[in-house]
């Protein structure tokens, strides 16, 4: 069987599995991450590019020409409670496929000192990791297919509050025209966690679908909808992005700079709307990204990301 035949078989397999499972979710088990996506209000399923985007759309892993290393950190806080998020990963192309490994951690550490007499001295340490293996066709063509194999791990200081599990995501990206892309991802398929208490948790599925379009006025405009297995249509996301080249003629430097804006509207639960904004600054093979995300329930979130690409970024 030739390499070309392998690619056809892989794509066919992905399509069959997407069709078979086609349906949906939200899960606390996996947290989406990436400063670029956050700056765009998480309207990112069609704009996903590289390792930053694989939690939104696995096909994002296909947009790596040679290799990439990614990192991201952020924190949510509310009074004395701090929830930390961190991600690190690397990916590279081997022949016509991209292979990536990424780990995302959510952690919380809290003690109840000076809370009230009955809780004095209690404490809680909790962390949950999601390990991603991303396999993408990496064709840089009009169609990108990919799969995330996920392993969940939970550790804590509390007896029984530990778990492990697995699941997978499927993603697809395509060009509808030279200026328009469409993306769709089915997340948390066949996903579950086994807790040390003996209970098994089925992680609800989720479908994200969206587009982006390079408008005449120079901005990239993106929109996503998210459908959760338990909640139905759960959220709508809108985002905008534009790149400029800043030139320093005295030193012949060129700094590509991006600005982003986003709006996220939740349609279930609190039904709140939050805005976000962000920027990126590229220098040689490095790309620094910052995002600010308004949060109705917690302090506003600041997300920092840094990506190193082993080849020049594609403008």
């Amino acid at each position, binding site marked *: 069987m030739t390499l070309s035949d392998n690619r056809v078989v892989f794509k066919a397999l992905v399509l069959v599995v997407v069709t078979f499972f086609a349906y949906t979710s939200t899960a*606390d088990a996996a947290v989406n991450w990436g400063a670029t996506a956050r700056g765009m209000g998480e309207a990112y399923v069609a704009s996903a590019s590289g390792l930053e985007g694989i939690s939104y759309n696995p096909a994002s892993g296909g947009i790596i020409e040679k290799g990439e290393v990614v990192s991201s950190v952020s924190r949510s806080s*509310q009074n*004395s409670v701090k929830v930390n998020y961190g991600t690190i990963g690397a990916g590279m192309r081997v022949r016509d496929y991209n292979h990536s490994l990424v780990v995302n951690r959510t952690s*919380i550490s*809290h003690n109840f000192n000076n*809370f009230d007499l009955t*809780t004095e001295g209690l404490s809680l340490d909790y962390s949950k990791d999601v390990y991603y293996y991303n396999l993408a066709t990496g064709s840089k063509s009009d169609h990108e297919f990919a799969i995330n194999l996920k392993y969940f791990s939970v550790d804590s*200081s509390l007896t029984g509050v530990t778990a492990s599990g697995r699941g997978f995501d499927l993603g697809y990206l395509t060009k509808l025209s030279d200026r328009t892309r469409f993306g769709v991802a089915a997340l948390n398929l066949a996903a579950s966690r086994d807790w040390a208490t003996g209970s098994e948790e089925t992680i609800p599925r989720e479908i994200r679908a969206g587009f982006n379009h390079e408008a005449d006025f120079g901005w990239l405009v993106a929109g996503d909808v998210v459908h959760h297995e338990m909640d139905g249509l759960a959220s709508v996301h809108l985002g905008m992005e534009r790149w400029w080249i800043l030139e320093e003629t005295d030193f012949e430097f060129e700094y590509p700079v991006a600005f982003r804006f986003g709006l996220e509207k939740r349609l279930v639960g609190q039904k709140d709307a939050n805005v976000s904004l962000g920027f990126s600054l590229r220098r040689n093979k490095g790309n620094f990204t910052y995002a600010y995300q308004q949060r109705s*329930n917690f302090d506003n979130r600041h997300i920092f990301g840094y990506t190193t690409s082993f080849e020049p970024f594609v403008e």
Partner: protein
Amino acid sequence: VDASLADALAASKDFGVVVFGNKGPGSSSTNSSSPRFDPTQGETLKVIPPQSSGATIKVFSLKDELVFEESSLTGQEVEWDGSDLNGSLVSTGVYVVKVTSGNKTKTFPVAVAK
């Protein structure tokens, strides 16, 4: 965790007390030894406000999504039985709880262990 609820209430007139692992409405259970409860065993998270106040409890997932919300009238307790806004039990894991009681707001994590 040796203090009784009465002692704790007396010492915390501006907020009240929080009880992890309370077994059922009206129960006088004391706090468990860790910030957790098992809703499948009838345990709840209970907030006992000062007598002159009610309490409001909001529960969030670590994805910052509102999971549960309830308020009580003056002098009444408020409980979270581990259910979400649809009435289904939440999954095992840690949640962030924001309680307003008396003239104070406190936020803390709690583990639901089923």
